[in-house]
C-alpha cells in the first residue's frame, strides 16, 4: 500500500452534506464526534469546506433542488475522496418513497462507496461502516 493511501486511511476529513434529510441522521453524525464515541481517535475530523474533505457524508433524500448542488460539492472535493451514504433515505428514500420531489436516489447522482442503513443509523453503526470502508480501501490497494 502506498504511503499516500495509508495516510488517507489514517486521517479522513469528512464533510457533512445534507440533501434533504429530516435532520435526524445529521444529529447522529454529530453524535459520532462527541466525547462518548470520539472519532478523532481514528483521525476523523469534521471540516467546514468541501475543499478540505476526503469523504462526503451524504444524508437525506436527494431532492430535485439538491441534485445539482450535491454534484457541485462532489466536484469541489479534491480527489481521491469517498462518498458515504448515511440513512435509509439516502439508500432508497425510506419513509418518503414515492414522493414527487425526489426522482433519484443518492447513488444515482453521486458515486457512493458505502451505504449505511438505518433510520437513523446508530453512531456505532456509522463507525462500523466507516471502519469497513477503510478496510476495503486497504484491501484494494
Amino acid at each position: 500500500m502506498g504511503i499516500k493511501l495509508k495516510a488517507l486511511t489514517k486521517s479522513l476529513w469528512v464533510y457533512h452534506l445534507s440533501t434533504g434529510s429530516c435532520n435526524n441522521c445529521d444529529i447522529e453524525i454529530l453524535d459520532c464526534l462527541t466525547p462518548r464515541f470520539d472519532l478523532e481517535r481514528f483521525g476523523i475530523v469534521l471540516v467546514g469546506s468541501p475543499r478540505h474533505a476526503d469523504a462526503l457524508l451524504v444524508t437525506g433524500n436527494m431532492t430535485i433542488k439538491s441534485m445539482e448542488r450535491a454534484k457541485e460539492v462532489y466536484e469541489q472535493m479534491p480527489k481521491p475522496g469517498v462518498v458515504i451514504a448515511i440513512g435509509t433515505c439516502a439508500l432508497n428514500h425510506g419513509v418518503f418513497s414515492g414522493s414527487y420531489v425526489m426522482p433519484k436516489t443518492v447513488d444515482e447522482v453521486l458515486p457512493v462507496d458505502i451505504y449505511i442503513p438505518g433510520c437513523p443509523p446508530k453512531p456505532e453503526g456509522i463507525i462500523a461502516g466507516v471502519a469497513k470502508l477503510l478496510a476495503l480501501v486497504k484491501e484494494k490497494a
Partner: protein
Amino acid sequence: MEHVFNYLIFPGFLFTAFAGILASWIDRKVTARVQWRVGPPFLQPLYDIVKLLGKETVIPRACSRFTFLLSPVFGLAAVTAVSTIVWKTMLWQNRGFAGDLIVVVYLLMIPSIALIVGGFASKNPIASLGASREMKLMLADELPFLIAVMVPVVQSNGAIKLDQLIAYQHTHGMVVGSISGVLALIVVIITTQAKLTLVPFDIPEAETEIMGGLEVEYSGTPLAIIKLTRMMMLFTLPMFLVLLFWGGVSFQGWSILWSILKYVFFLVLIVLIRNTNPRLRIDQAVKFLWGPVTFIGIAAVVLALMGK
C-alpha cells in the same frame, strides 16, 4: 553552505517541522483530555500533512493563480527564518547580528500577511471576510506585543540583540523574576493567542461561523503548507517567549529536561486558554487588545524603566 544547512535542516525547516508536528499533537491531545476524550494517535498531524500532500490541488477559476499558490510558501519561509535565528542564538554563542530581535518581530508578522494575501487572492467572499478580520486582528495584537517585547529590552539597558538578552538574563536573573516581567509576560501570552489565531481570537477562521475563513479555498499541497506553517508557529512562538522572558534553553546535562519543560509549560498554558474560553467578536477583540492589554503593557514598560 553552513547557512543553507542551518536554514533547511537544523535548526531550520526539518527540525522545526518535526517539532511543530509534535507540538500540534500535544495541542490536540490536551484538548481531547480537557474534553474528556481519548484524542488522536501520536503521529496524527504527520498523517494529516502527508495525506494533504498526496491530494489534488483545486484552483478556483476566478482566483489569481500565482498569488494564491505562492503566498503560503512565503509564510512557511518566514517561520523557518524565525526559528533558525532563535535557535542559532540559543544553541551557539555570538551567532546573532545587531538588531535581530527587530527582524524576528517583523518576520513573525509575515505568516499572517501571507494568509491575508492568499485569502484575498482566492476571491471567495468568505475568505475575504476572514482576511479582513485577520487584518484587524493583526493591527490589534501588534501594538501590545511590541510594547511588551520592549520590557526585556529596557531591563537589559537597550539590548536589541538576542544573545545579549540571554547573556543579561544569565547574569541578572530571568525577566519573569520581576514585576514588570510578569506583567509583560501576561500581555505577550494573550497576544500570542491572537497571533496563533487560537480561541478566543480564532475570529478569522471561526470553523463554525465562516467555515475556516482564510483557508476555505485551499486544498492539497498549499493547504498542507498552511497547516505546517501553523504547527511550526506553535513551536516557534513559545520558544521565542522562552528566550525573551525565561532565559532561553540550554543543552548541557540535566538542563535539557528543564528547557523542554519551559516550552511545554507555555504550550500547555496556551492550549488551556484556548480550551476554556469562548470566541470573541472582532470588535470585542480589538477593544480588549487595545484597551486593558495595552494598558498593562505600558504599565510594565514604566515599571521596567523604574527598575522594578
